[in-house]
């Protein structure tokens, strides 16, 4: 793969920050406020940390027995009248969906939010084959109208101001560009989407969880758009990643108590819907999708990422994400979870992502299923270094530094040289990617007149631990 393919999150983040004095501060503020609501909800539950541990173990149990639970789910869902399909990869998922739609003569479908469908690039695939695809989630619809992917898995358009949305709607739906009241804009979308729900030949959803015990899958929304899509058109297709399985109905209580609190700082989403077989008078197809998940299961350092319940809390807490915006990651999944998932889709393309982090560790702490996200980010750095994906300047300077720092005489020689050198050429740094990046926003710290070591030799030489 050529260099041109590689995603540069630092550059994209810089553009987001420098764009104006409005967007990045707003983005940071909103997500920080969401985190504070999350903290307040969590603090109100004495067993919060215990719930995290239980949820983590339920997921680990399920994943270490995944084949069994998938078969149980399929059996129970089929018994209740659902059609269950299996898709090896994104291409097969799209082909299966297209085939079902074609069989039913569907010309227009309306869908609710699904990161999996985004991952499979399903919408453009279907549009190219003459099937109109309408996003019903407000945030997704905004992004669809703007020709952009979602920037956050829970708040797809959180990087846009209300003015951005008003101007977008004016351009695409024909409303007043100066009326940016969110209530009005939401009403516009409501009236725009309703006829589409009634006209659609099929409704598509994702699945937050799939319960093996009963063959049920769950969809959580605030708008109820998934429920309209499932209850109005005669055909309901659900795309579900194989990692979404959980064993029993009672397990759901643990996850639901954690999900919306982690994601938004509310006890539940407004609608937590359970679908078991087709509705009266309807038809239900479930597409179980692998697309690299079974391969990820076999990665000892990274399979815990499969526990993810797509809450987005890691994005909200990540100080880097809040200043970068989700689009800067150049992938379906952004933020800390994106950093550890995306390299499994394309190691070279996403080789910079693990470095778009300060390893602060906050993501690990907020993850409701206790994925060791920060540790995985660190481990991905080792993978990138081993594969030789570190930028050339870093590789060379680390080789030099490695040699020097491994030998004390060379280090002390460098110290006495570099001291004056750094004073004389303050903008020189071992690993700068552009001229003087440190100096752009910071003053260079001066080298001390006397190192600690020299002070020690002068003042404490009787304690000196050198071999005489």
């Amino acid at each position: 793969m050529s260099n041109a393919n590689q995603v540069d999150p630092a550059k994209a983040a810089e553009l987001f920050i420098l764009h104006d004095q409005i967007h990045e501060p707003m983005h940071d503020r909103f997500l920080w406020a969401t985190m504070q609501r999350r903290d307040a909800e969590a603090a109100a539950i004495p067993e919060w940390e215990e719930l995290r541990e239980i949820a983590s173990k339920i997921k680990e149990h399920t994943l270490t027995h995944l084949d069994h639970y998938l078969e149980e789910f399929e059996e129970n869902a089929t018994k209740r009248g659902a059609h269950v399909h299996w898709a090896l990869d994104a291409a097969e998922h799209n082909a299966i969906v297209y085939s079902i739609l074609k069989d039913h003569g569907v010309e227009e479908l309306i869908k609710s939010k699904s990161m999996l469908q985004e991952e499979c690039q399903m919408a453009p695939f279907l549009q190219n084959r003459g099937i109109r695809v309408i996003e019903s989630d407000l945030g997704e619809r905004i992004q669809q109208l703007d020709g952009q992917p979602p920037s956050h898995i829970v708040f797809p358009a959180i990087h846009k101001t209300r003015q951005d949305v008003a101007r977008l709607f004016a351009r695409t739906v024909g409303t007043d560009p100066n009326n940016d009241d969110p209530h009005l804009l939401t009403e516009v979308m409501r009236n725009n989407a309703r006829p589409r729900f009634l006209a659609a030949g099929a409704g598509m959803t994702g699945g937050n969880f799939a319960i093996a015990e009963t063959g049920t899958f769950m969809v959580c929304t605030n708008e109820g758009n998934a429920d309209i899509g499932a209850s109005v058109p005669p055909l309901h297709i659900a795309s579900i990643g194989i990692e979404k399985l959980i064993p029993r109905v009672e397990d759901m209580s643990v996850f639901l108590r954690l999900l919306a609190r982690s994601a938004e700082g509310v006890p539940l989403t407004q609608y937590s819907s359970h679908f078991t077989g087709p509705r009266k008078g309807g038809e239900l197809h479930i597409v179980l999708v692998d697309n690299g998940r079974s391969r990820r299961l076999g990665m000892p350092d990274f399979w815990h990422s499969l526990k993810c319940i797509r809450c987005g809390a890691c994005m909200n807490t990540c100080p880097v994400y809040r200043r970068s915006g989700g689009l800067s990651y150049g992938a379906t999944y952004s933020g800390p979870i994106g950093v550890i998932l995306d390299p499994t889709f394309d190691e070279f393309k996403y080789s910079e992502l693990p470095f778009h982090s300060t390893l602060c560790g906050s993501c690990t702490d907020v993850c409701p299923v206790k994925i060791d996200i920060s540790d995985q980010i660190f481990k991905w750095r080792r993978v990138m270094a081993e594969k030789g994906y570190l930028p050339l300047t870093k590789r060379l300077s680390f080789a030099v530094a490695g040699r020097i720092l491994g030998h004390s005489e060379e280090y002390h020689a460098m110290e006495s040289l570099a001291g004056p050198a750094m004073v004389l050429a303050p903008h020189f740094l071992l690993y700068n990617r552009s001229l003087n990046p440190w100096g752009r926003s910071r003053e260079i710290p001066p080298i001390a007149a006397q190192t600690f070591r020299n002070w020690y030799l002068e003042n404490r030489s009787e304690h000196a631990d050198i071999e005489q």
Partner: protein
Amino acid sequence: MTTQTETINQKMLSKNARIGLFIPCYIDMMFPEVGIATLQLLERFRLNVGYPLNQTCCGQPMSNSGDEVNAAGAELLFVENFKSYDYIIGPAGSCVKQVRCHFDVIEQTADVKHIRQHTYELVEFLHGILKVDSFPWAEFQHSVAIHNSCSSIRGLGIAKPSEIMGVPFDKTADLLSKVKGLVLVPVDRPDDCCGFGGTFCVTDEAVSARMGLEKAHDHLRHGAEYVVSPDMSCLMHQQGIARHTGLALKYIHVAQVLNGGPF
């Protein structure tokens, strides 16, 4: 993930314990006063403190970038220098975390294991092992905002992270609250990362600077004159940004405050 070493729960430090002073490379070169303060402070407790002259670096710059091959030389030299000490104390949370958590690729000899189990950051050593309850020689008539580094909080357990539910604690605050005249100010985002992140501050310059600026404004907003931290690397970054922006904040290491100098 917090690492707790075995001996942090021991009640008494043996009088003859050999303490090895670990002075990170950037403190040696740029902030020797922090090293001096640390040494003088430990000596006040009549500890037997040695300073291996051949120490260089813990290997963090390379290790943090995933380059364990080139980190190994520094890591092995560290072990060689400090293996004969009972406790290794360093005034730097991120470096201590590096030793405890990321010396895991080099062969796990008895010496390596000993090092990983007995290397402490200064605050956690004073708080948990020496259990210091007063600093009579120190005075600091200023308002102070504490900055605990992410490594110290989430890697070493110096304070409860705000996102984890439980009984709050802050070892740095406990120690500083014993210094005469020192007034601790609360801040809006006590454990939101300041943006240093090692090479991150160079490779992700714009984001790093935004994070640092946010920190500085938070401290200013609450009337802090000084920002005090157990981690000079974070302070170096925040100070650089504050100076560049012309913000009136002063930055100082916790060792200097607890020792009463050098300032």
